[in-house]
C-alpha cells in the first residue's frame, strides 16, 4: 500500500514528463508526395528560382518587370533594372499584379445574362455578324478599350478598320491624362508628352504633381528626384529645392521644402502670377493681392534658368498645364518632349452618344469597366441597354459584365503574349509567365475573332508586328529582347515644340467659382481606378498620408472640419449639385487646402469579388465628363452616424521626441568620430558578414513600395479590416508618417521602420525558449517553429516591429497555396514574426558564395524593400565590407540610430531628413 503510494506518485510525475517528451515526436503524419515532371522543363531547376522578364501595363503604359519563378510559377514581381520606367524599382500596384494572377475571384467562364454560357454561342453570334459586316463594312460595330500603347494591338485595330471601314474604335481611361494633352495643345498647338529630368533640376515646382507617385515613368522620375534630395547626404552634387502648390497632399508635396496649400481656383492664379514673373505671360497676370511667396518662388525659378522645372498633375485643368508648359519654355526647363506614346482615339462621350442614338449594334468592351467608372452624365448603363450585342472581356465578373450580353473571362497580362510601350516610348515584349490559370481570352484574340482570323496566335501577332522593324537576324534580336525585357532603341525621339504666339490670349479666363466647398476626385494611391480592388495586398497597404486601409474617406482640412463641425470617422453625405450622393466617413487630414474635400476613386466596387466588393464607397458617381476631377458646387451633410476607419497609425505627431531628425542643408552636422557606446557586455564572436541597413529619410518619399515588396516576398498574410482596426496589421516594414508640429501648414515626414536588428536586442533576452536569438552575422533571427507565443518580445521591442499571429491569418488568406514563396515559412497561429532582412535571400547568397569558396560581393544580397524602393532610400549590405554601399551611407554625419539612448545598438540606422528651404520665404 505505502509502496504503491510512493510509486504511484512518482509515476504521475514521470507521466507528465513523458508526455512532454513524446508529444510531437511520434511518426510523422501523412507522408509527403514527390511528383517529378514526366519530362524535364528546360531551364528549370527544382528548388532554385528562375527569373523571366516581362512588363506590367498600367493605364496603357508599360513598366519593366522581372518575375521570380519557383518550379515554373511566378511568385514575386521585381522591377527590371534594364527598363527605363523601372530601373529595378517596382511600385505597389505593380507588385500586386502577381496576387491578381492567382486571385481566386477571377472570372473563369463565359457568361450570358449571369448564366454560364457556351463559348460557341458567342462564336456563332459573331460569325453571323461577320457575314453582315463584310457587307456593310462593319456598321454599328464599336470597340472600346483602355488607353493603348501596344504596337501590335494598334496594328490589329488598324487592320480591323481597313477590314470594316464603318467600325469605330473608342478608348476610355478613367484616369486619363487628357488634360495634359489639352494643355500642350493650348501651349504648343499639338499634344506632346513632357518628361521632367529631375537629375538636371535644381528647382522643382510641383502643381499637385504626380511625377514621383503615379505619372507614367514615376519610378524613374523618383529615382532621379531622390538622388538630388540625397545630395547633401552623399556629398555628391547640389541638393535640389522643391516647391509644391497643391490643394491635397501629394508625395512630391511631402518631399517639398516649401508647400503651399491652395484651393484649385487659387492655384491657377498663383501660377499665372509666376508665369508673368518669369516673362511667360502678360504682366497683368501678376495680380494685385498675391501672397508674398509667389514672387520669391518666381525669382528662384528665374534665377535657375535651364535648371528649374514645373510639373503639374493630370487632374489639373488644361489651362494650368498650358501655363506650366509656358513657364517651362521660358525657363528652358530640363524636360524632354516626345510624341504621345498612347494611341489617340475618340473617347467614351462620343460612344455613349451614339449608343443612346441606337447607332451601336455590336459593342466589344476590352478590359475596361465603364458600367462602374463612366462619368455619371453619360448614362452609360442606360446606353448599354440599347446595344443589341455587347461583349465584355474582363478578368473579373464586374459591373459591366452584369449588363453585357456576353462576358468573356480575360487572361491576365502574365498569361499571354503581348507588347506595350513605356512612358518614354521604349517597347517591351510581354511574354507569358504561366499557362493560363483560367480558360480565358486575350484582347488580341477577341479582335482576331472579329476579324475572323483562323487559328490566331498572339505570339505570331506580336512577332509579325516587330519583324518588320528589324533588319537582320530577327530570332536573335527577339530572344535578346525577351531576355532583356526591352526592345532595343525603341525610345521615342524628341519632339520639337514652340510656344504658340497667341498662347496668352488663347488661354481661357480663369473660372471665378467662389464655392464654399470643392470636392476633389482623385485616384486612390494603390487601387488607382479600382481595377485592382480585389487585391488584398493593395487594400491593406496603408495610404501614405492617411495610413488608412480597406476604405476611402472624405479628407478634410482641420480648419474646414472645425468650420463644418465634423470630426474624423463621422459619416457624411457628399453630393454634386442635386446629383447622386456618396456616403463615407470623414477624416481630418492636415495638409488639405481649406474648403477642399478629397475623395479617392476606385472604391465601392459593386461587383469584382469577395475581397473588393463593398469596400469603401464609390466616389465615381460624382464624376461628370466635363469635370471628372473636381466638383465645385458640392454639398456636404453630416449624418450624425459614425463609422470606424481602419488606420494603422493612431498618433500623428512626434510629440517633440527625437525620432525623425531634420536638418537644414545650410547647417548640417559636422562629421564627428562617433564615440563607441559603452556596454556592459563583452563583444560576441561574429561571423564572416555583419548585415546592416541604412535608410535615407531625405530620399524616402513614402510611396509604400517597400511594404508591398516585403508582403509579397515574405508571405505576409492579409488580415482584413476588422483585424487592422484591432491593431493587428502584419506588415514587417511599416512607413510611419509624422506631421511636423507646424499646425498651419504641416509637412509630412516619412520613416520606414523594419526590424532594427539590434546587436543588444531587448526582445531576445526576455524570450523563455530561445525562439528569437542572434546569429553570427548579427541578424536578430526569429525561429517561428520554436516560438510558444509569450509575446514578451513584442512588448519589449521599443520599435514595435514585431507582429503576432493572433489568429491563423495565413490559413484564412484566400490566395492559393501555389502562390506563396516556398523559401519562406508560412507562419502558424500563435507565433511571433518580424522582419528578417530577407534571411532567405541572404542564405541563398551565402550558400552560393560558400559553395564556390568566394566572398559575397556588395549588392549580391538585396532585401525586397531595398530592391523595390524607387529612390534607393534603403541600402542593405555587409558592414564588414569596407567598400560596401551601406558602410558608406553609415559614414555620413547625418546617420543616426533610432532611440539610440536605449543603447540597443541597431543595425538599421537612418540618415536624417535634410531640407533646402528658401531663406526668402518664411511661411510654408
Amino acid at each position: 500500500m505505502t509502496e504503491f503510494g510512493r510509486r504511484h506518485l512518482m509515476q504521475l510525475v514521470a507521466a507528465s514528463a513523458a508526455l512532454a517528451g513524446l508529444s510531437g515526436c511520434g511518426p510523422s503524419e501523412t507522408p509527403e508526395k514527390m511528383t517529378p515532371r514526366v519530362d524535364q522543363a528546360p531551364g528549370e531547376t527544382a528548388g532554385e528560382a528562375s527569373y523571366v522578364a516581362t512588363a506590367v501595363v498600367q493605364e496603357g503604359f508599360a513598366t519593366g518587370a522581372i518575375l521570380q519563378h519557383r518550379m515554373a510559377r511566378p511568385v514575386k514581381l521585381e522591377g527590371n533594372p534594364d527598363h527605363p520606367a523601372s530601373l529595378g524599382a517596382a511600385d505597389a500596384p505593380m507588385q500586386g499584379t502577381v496576387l491578381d494572377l492567382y486571385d481566386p475571384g477571377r472570372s473563369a467562364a463565359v457568361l450570358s445574362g449571369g448564366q454560364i454560357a457556351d463559348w460557341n454561342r458567342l462564336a456563332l453570334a459573331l460569325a453571323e455578324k461577320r457575314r453582315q459586316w463584310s457587307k456593310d463594312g462593319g456598321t454599328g460595330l464599336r470597340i472600346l478599350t483602355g488607353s493603348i500603347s501596344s504596337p501590335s494591338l494598334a496594328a490589329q485595330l488598324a487592320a480591323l478598320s481597313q477590314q470594316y471601314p464603318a467600325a469605330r474604335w473608342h478608348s476610355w481611361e478613367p484616369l486619363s491624362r487628357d488634360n495634359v494633352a489639352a494643355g500642350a495643345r493650348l501651349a504648343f498647338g499639338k499634344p506632346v508628352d513632357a518628361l521632367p529630368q529631375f537629375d538636371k533640376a535644381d528647382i522643382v515646382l510641383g502643381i499637385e504633381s504626380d511625377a514621383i507617385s503615379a505619372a507614367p515613368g514615376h519610378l524613374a522620375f523618383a529615382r532621379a528626384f531622390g538622388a538630388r534630395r540625397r545630395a547633401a547626404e552623399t556629398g555628391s552634387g547640389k541638393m535640389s529645392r522643391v516647391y509644391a502648390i497643391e490643394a491635397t497632399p501629394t508625395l512630391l508635396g511631402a518631399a517639398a521644402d516649401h508647400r503651399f496649400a491652395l484651393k484649385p481656383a487659387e492655384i491657377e492664379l498663383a501660377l499665372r502670377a509666376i508665369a508673368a514673373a518669369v516673362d511667360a505671360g502678360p504682366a497683368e497676370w501678376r495680380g494685385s493681392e498675391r501672397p508674398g511667396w509667389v514672387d520669391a518662388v518666381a525669382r528662384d525659378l528665374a534665377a535657375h534658368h535651364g535648371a528649374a522645372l514645373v510639373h503639374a498633375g493630370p487632374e489639373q485643368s488644361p489651362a494650368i498645364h498650358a501655363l506650366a508648359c509656358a513657364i517651362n519654355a521660358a525657363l528652358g526647363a530640363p524636360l524632354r518632349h516626345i510624341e504621345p506614346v498612347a494611341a489617340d482615339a475618340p473617347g467614351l462621350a462620343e460612344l455613349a452618344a451614339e449608343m443612346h442614338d441606337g447607332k451601336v449594334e455590336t459593342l466589344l468592351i476590352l478590359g475596361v469597366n465603364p458600367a462602374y467608372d463612366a462619368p455619371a452624365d453619360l448614362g452609360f448603363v442606360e446606353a448599354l441597354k440599347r446595344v443589341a450585342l455587347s461583349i465584355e472581356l474582363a478578368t473579373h465578373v464586374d459591373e459591366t459584365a452584369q449588363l453585357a450580353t456576353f462576358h468573356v473571362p480575360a487572361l491576365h497580362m502574365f498569361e499571354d503574349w503581348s507588347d506595350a510601350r513605356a512612358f518614354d516610348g521604349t517597347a517591351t515584349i510581354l511574354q507569358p509567365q504561366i499557362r493560363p490559370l483560367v480558360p480565358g481570352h486575350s484582347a488580341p484574340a477577341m479582335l482576331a475573332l472579329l476579324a475572323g482570323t483562323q487559328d490566331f496566335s498572339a505570339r505570331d501577332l506580336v512577332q509579325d508586328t516587330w519583324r518588320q522593324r528589324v533588319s537582320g537576324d530577327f530570332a536573335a534580336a527577339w530572344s535578346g529582347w525577351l531576355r532583356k525585357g526591352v526592345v532595343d532603341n525603341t525610345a521615342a525621339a524628341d519632339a520639337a515644340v514652340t510656344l504658340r504666339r497667341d498662347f496668352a490670349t488663347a488661354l481661357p479666363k480663369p473660372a471665378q467659382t467662389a464655392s464654399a466647398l470643392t470636392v476633389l476626385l482623385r485616384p486612390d494611391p494603390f487601387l488607382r481606378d479600382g481595377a485592382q480592388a480585389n487585391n488584398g495586398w493593395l487594400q491593406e497597404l496603408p495610404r501614405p498620408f492617411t495610413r488608412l486601409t480597406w476604405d476611402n474617406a472624405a479628407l478634410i482640412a482641420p480648419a474646414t472640419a472645425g468650420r463644418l463641425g465634423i470630426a474624423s470617422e463621422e459619416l457624411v453625405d457628399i453630393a454634386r449639385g442635386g446629383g447622386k450622393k456618396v456616403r463615407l466617413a470623414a477624416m481630418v487630414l492636415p495638409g488639405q487646402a481649406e474648403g477642399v474635400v478629397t475623395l479617392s476613386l476606385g472604391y465601392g466596387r459593386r461587383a469584382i469579388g469577395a475581397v473588393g466588393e463593398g469596400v469603401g464607397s464609390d466616389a465615381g458617381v460624382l464624376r461628370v465628363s466635363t469635370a471628372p476631377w473636381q466638383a465645385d458646387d458640392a454639398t456636404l451633410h453630416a449624418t450624425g452616424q459614425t463609422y470606424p476607419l481602419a488606420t494603422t497609425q493612431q498618433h500623428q505627431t512626434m510629440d517633440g521626441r527625437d525620432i525623425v531628425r531634420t536638418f537644414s542643408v545650410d547647417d548640417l552636422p559636422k562629421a564627428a568620430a562617433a564615440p563607441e557606446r559603452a556596454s556592459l557586455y563583452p563583444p560576441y564572436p561574429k561571423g564572416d558578414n555583419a548585415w546592416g541597413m541604412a535608410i535615407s529619410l531625405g530620399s524616402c518619399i513614402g510611396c509604400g513600395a517597400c511594404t508591398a515588396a516585403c508582403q509579397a516576398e515574405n508571405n505576409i498574410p492579409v488580415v482584413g479590416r476588422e483585424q487592422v482596426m484591432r491593431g493587428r496589421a502584419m506588415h514587417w516594414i511599416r512607413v510611419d508618417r509624422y506631421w511636423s508640429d507646424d499646425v498651419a501648414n504641416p509637412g509630412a515626414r516619412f520613416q520606414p521602420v523594419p526590424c532594427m536588428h539590434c546587436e543588444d536586442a531587448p526582445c531576445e533576452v526576455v524570450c523563455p525558449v530561445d525562439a528569437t536569438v542572434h546569429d553570427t552575422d548579427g541578424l536578430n533571427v526569429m525561429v517561428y517553429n520554436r516560438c510558444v507565443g509569450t509575446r514578451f518580445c513584442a512588448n519589449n521591442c521599443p520599435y514595435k516591429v514585431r507582429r503576432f499571429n493572433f489568429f491563423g491569418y495565413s490559413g484564412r488568406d484566400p490566395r492559393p497555396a501555389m502562390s506563396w514563396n516556398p523559401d519562406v515559412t508560412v507562419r502558424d497561429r500563435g507565433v511571433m514574426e518580424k522582419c528578417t532582412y530577407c534571411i532567405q535571400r541572404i542564405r541563398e547568397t551565402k550558400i552560393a558564395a560558400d559553395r564556390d569558396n568566394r566572398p559575397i560581393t556588395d549588392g549580391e544580397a538585396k532585401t525586397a524593400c531595398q530592391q523595390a524602393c524607387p529612390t534607393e532610400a534603403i541600402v542593405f549590405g555587409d558592414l564588414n565590407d569596407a567598400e560596401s554601399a551601406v558602410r558608406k551611407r553609415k559614414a555620413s554625419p547625418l546617420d543616426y540610430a533610432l532611440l539610440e539612448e536605449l543603447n540597443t545598438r541597431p543595425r538599421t540606422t537612418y540618415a536624417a531628413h535634410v531640407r533646402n528651404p528658401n531663406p526668402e520665404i518664411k511661411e510654408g
Partner: protein
Amino acid sequence: MSGLAAEFAAEAALVEAAGRLRQAGLRRIEAYTPYPVEALDDFLPRPRAILPVLVFAAGILGLAGGFLLQWYGAAVSYPLDIGGRPPASWPAFIPIAFEIAVLGAVTAGFIGFFALAGLPAPYQPIALLPGFERASQDRFFLVVDEADPRFAAADVASILGGFPCRVVPWRP
C-alpha cells in the same frame, strides 16, 4: 511493542506521570497526545534530529544543481547569442537556482518527515488499544514497553496508580 498503557484525561497528569516513570529509570516510554506536548521532551527518548540536516543538504544540492543546469544548458550544451549577453551570466541564473534550491529543500523536508515518521502506514497496532481513537482528540496515552530492562508490571502499575488515569495491560 507491548506492555502497560495508561489513559489520561489531562495533559498535566500525563507529564507528571511520565516524569515519575523516568525517575524510576524507565526509558522505553511513548506518549500519544492530541497535540504536541513539549514538556514530555525531558522524559521521553529523543531521536537525533536529522531532518534539518537533510533539508539543508537538499537545499544546497538544489542550489548547486540549479546553477549547473543553467550553466550547462546556456554556456556548454548550446551556447547562443542572446541579445549580446554573455552565455554564462551567473547573475541571471540566481533566481532559478534559488527556486530549485527551495523546492528541493521543501520536498526533502516533506518526504523526510514521512520517511522518519514511518508514514504512510495505515496499520498502527496501537490503534487497537480500546479508546485509543480519542488519543487524537481529548485523551492522553502513555505506553511503557515491557521490553524495557527496568520494566516490572507491578512497579509501573503502582507508579501510574498514583495518577488519575486508567491503566490497561496492552498486547497488540
